[in-house]
C-alpha cells in the first residue's frame, strides 16, 4: 500500500507567526482541474486591524535598520524564493498557469527582489539632496518611510504582483499589510513561509488571504495605514479614496482594468519606492 502524503494547512503570516483567521473561517481552494486543494483562511476586518497593529509595532525597528542591512534582507528573501522556486511554481500552476509561465513568474519575482534590494542604500542618494538656499543656512532634504502601508494585490500574477507591490514599500523601511490574490491565494501562503526565513523581522510584512469585498473597505478607513498601494477596480478605487480623505491617506492605485504587465521592466521603479516616502527638509544656520 502506498504511503498517504500529509497535506499542509495553509496559514497566513502575521506578526511573524502563522495564524488562522480570528473568525476561524476558511474557504476551499480548488486546483486548475477543479479538485479540492486546501482550505484557505478567510481573513476579516479584525484580522486586518490585528495585522496593522503588528506592522505598526515592527515599524520603528525596521525603519532604523541600516540601509545596507535592509538590502541584505531583501536579497535573502530572493535567496529563499530561488531555493523553493519549484514549489512556488507549482502553487502558481494551481491557478492554471503553464509550467513555463509559472517558472517565469517565480524567476521574475526573485529578480524583482534583487532589484529592490539594490535600491535600499541608493534611492536616498537619488531622491534626496542639499538645497542651495539664498541665506546662511545648511538645508537638506531626506526621505523617510511613511509608516504602515496597505497593499492590495490583484488576482492575477499572484506571486509577482504581490511581491512587486510589497518590495518597494519595505525597501525604505515601511511595514506592510497585504491582501493576497483572492482567486489564487496559495502562492502568498508560501511566500509567508519564505518571509519567515529571510531574516525579515516579524511584522514587517503581513499577508492576509480572503475576499476583497470584505477587507478592502477597511483598507480604506483604517487611519493607521498611512498609504495604500495596489490594484483596484473603479468601485474599489472610489471607496479607497473616499476613506483615504478622512485621514489624508496617500493612495497609489493601479486600475484593475489596465491589466498591468508585471513581467515588464516598467513594473519596477525607483518611483514606486518614492510613492511610500515622505520628504523631510531640515534647516540649520551656518555660523560660528
Amino acid at each position: 500500500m502506498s504511503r498517504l502524503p500529509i497535506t499542509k494547512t495553509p496559514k497566513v503570516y502575521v506578526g511573524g507567526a502563522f495564524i488562522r483567521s480570528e473568525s476561524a473561517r476558511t474557504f476551499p481552494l480548488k486546483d486548475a482541474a477543479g479538485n479540492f486543494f486546501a482550505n484557505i483562511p478567510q481573513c476579516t476586518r479584525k484580522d486586518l486591524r490585528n495585522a496593522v497593529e503588528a506592522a505598526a509595532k515592527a515599524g520603528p525597528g525596521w525603519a532604523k535598520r541600516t540601509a545596507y542591512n535592509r538590502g541584505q534582507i531583501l536579497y535573502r528573501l530572493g535567496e529563499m524564493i530561488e531555493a523553493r522556486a519549484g514549489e512556488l511554481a507549482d502553487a502558481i500552476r494551481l491557478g492554471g498557469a503553464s509550467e513555463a509561465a509559472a517558472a517565469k513568474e517565480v524567476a521574475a519575482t526573485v529578480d524583482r527582489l534583487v532589484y529592490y534590494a539594490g535600491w535600499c542604500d541608493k534611492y536616498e542618494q537619488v531622491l534626496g539632496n542639499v538645497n542651495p538656499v539664498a541665506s546662511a543656512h545648511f538645508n537638506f532634504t531626506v526621505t523617510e518611510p511613511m509608516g504602515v502601508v496597505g497593499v492590495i494585490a490583484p488576482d492575477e500574477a499572484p506571486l509577482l504582483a504581490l511581491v512587486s507591490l510589497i518590495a518597494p514599500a519595505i525597501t525604505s523601511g515601511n511595514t506592510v499589510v497585504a491582501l493576497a490574490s483572492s482567486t489564487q491565494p496559495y502562492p502568498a501562503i508560501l511566500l509567508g513561509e519564505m518571509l519567515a526565513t529571510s531574516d525579515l523581522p516579524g511584522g514587517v510584512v503581513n499577508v492576509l488571504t480572503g475576499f476583497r469585498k470584505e477587507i478592502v473597505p477597511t483598507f480604506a478607513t483604517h487611519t493607521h495605514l498611512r498609504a495604500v498601494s495596489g490594484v483596484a477596480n473603479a468601485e474599489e478605487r472610489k471607496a479607497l479614496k473616499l476613506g483615504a480623505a478622512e485621514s489624508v491617506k496617500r493612495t497609489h492605485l493601479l486600475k484593475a482594468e489596465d491589466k498591468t504587465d508585471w513581467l515588464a521592466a516598467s513594473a519596477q521603479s525607483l518611483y514606486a519606492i518614492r510613492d511610500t516616502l515622505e520628504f523631510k527638509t531640515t534647516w540649520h544656520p551656518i555660523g560660528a
Partner: protein
Amino acid sequence: MPTLTEKKTTRSGRPAPELIFGDLWEYDPAPETADPKLKARYDLFINGAFVAPKSGKYFDSINPANEQKLAEIALANKDDVDAAYAAAQRAFDTTWGKMPGRERAKYLYRIARLLQDRAREFAVAETLDGGKPIKESRDFDVPMAAAHFFYHAGWADKLEYVAPGHKVAPLGVVGQVIPWNFPLLMLAWKIAPALAMGNCVVLKPAETTSVTCLKLAEILQDAGLPPGVVNFVTGFGETGAAVTGHPTPAKIAFTGSTEVGKIIMRSLAGTDKKMTMELGGKAANIVFDDAPLDQAVEGIVNGIFFNQGHVCCAGSRLLVHEPVADKVLAKLKNRLKVLRVGDPMDKNTDLGAINSREQLKRITELVASGVKEGAELYQPPCKLPTKGFYFRPTLFSGVSMSHRIAREEIFGPVLSILTFRTVEEAVEKANNTAYGLSAGVWTDKGSRILKMSTELKAGVVWANTYNKFDPTSPFGGYKESGFGREGGRQGLLDYCQLT
C-alpha cells in the same frame, strides 16, 4: 539630561537689571507711502484678458486694517470657470504645451523681473488687501514670490534632471486654489512650478485677498505670456468648488485648511485626478535647556507672530524643557511687551491686522476656550486701533495636550506653552497630533538636533531657526498636513507625469 546653562550674573553677583525700551519713547508714525496702483474694480483674468463675470456680480474686498472698501472683485460662476478651463486647455494644446522649455523659461524669467520692478507697489497692495505688516510684504512675500518664478524658470529647459531614469511630461491643465495668508507668494508657489513643467493653470485666490493675484495678471500681460496659459477666477467657496470639481484639470493643487482639503479629496474620489494638498499644522517648537535662549525667544516670537500667526507652519505649540521654562516664559513676556501691534502700513509694525472678521472671531473663540479649559493667559497691554481687525499677541502657559488650544490650528497670534523633561517626552508630545507640517528645535547639541530632526514627524524641521523659506527648499507635510511638496526638485515632480 545634563543642564548646560550657567547662571548669568553681573560682577557684583546681582542679576542684571532688565531694560525694556519699548515704552520709553513714543514712536513717530512711519507709514509706507508708495502707490499700490489699485483699480476700483477687478475683472476675471481669462484667456489673457480681463473679462467681466458672466453673472455681472462683484463683491467688495476690504482693507482689514480699517474695514474700508479697497476694490470690487468679480464673482466667477460655473460658466466663467468653464471658460477659464477652455482657455487653459486651448493654450496647452496650441502654444504652451508645445513650446520648447528654454522659451517657457524666458517667460518665467520675465515675470520674475517684472515683479521685482514693481515690488514696492505689490507690497503695499498686499498689505492693504490682507493686513500683514508692510515690512513682511516688502521684505518677504514679494521678493520671495519673485524668487520662486526665477528659480523655476531655470528648470523649464532642464526637466530631464527632475526624475533620473525617466522622461517627464506635463500633466496638462491644473486647477489651483490658494489661501489668504500669503496671497501672492502662494500664487507663485503654485504657478511657477506648474508653468515650468509645461502645464496651464486655472487658479482661484482667496475671496479676501484677490488683489495682488489680479495685479499679477497685469504682469503676465506685460510679459507677453500666451493667452490662456494662466487664468484667474475670483470668488468664494462655490467658485473654488467649481475649480476643483471641473472635469478638465488633470490635477488639483490646494493649499488651505485640512477640513477643506478633506472635502476636496472626497469630491475627487471617483476621478483619476492627481492631487497635492498643503493643509493645516500645529507645529511644536521645542526649546532645550542648553539652547541660546535669547535667540530661541526671537525664534519663538518669529515662529508664532510672523504674519499674525496666519501661517500653516507656525510654531504654535512651544515645548520648553522644564529647567528653563520659567526663564523662557519671563523672557517671552518681556519680548511681547515691545511688539508693536497696529497699522500694517507702518514700517515699525510687528503685528498687523487679522485678515478678516471671520478669522478674528475664530481666534477669539479658541482663546476663550483656552481660558475656560484652565490655561493661563498673558497678553501685553498694547493699544489696538479702534477700527479694523486686531488681536493682541497671546501666550498661554500651563497648557496640557488635551486642551483645544494645543490640538486645533488657531491660525492667529496665539502661542500655547507646554513643558517636557526628556527628549523622549518632547518627541512624544511633538508628534502627538494629526498634523505633521513643521517643527522647530533649539539646542546647542548637534547630535540632539539630528536625533530630533529624525524623530519628528514633520515635513520641515527648523533647527535653531524658524519660519525660513526658499524656492529651492521643498515644503509640505506629513499625515493630515497634506501630501506632495512645493519647491525644489521634489516639488516639480508633483507637476509632471513620468513617461
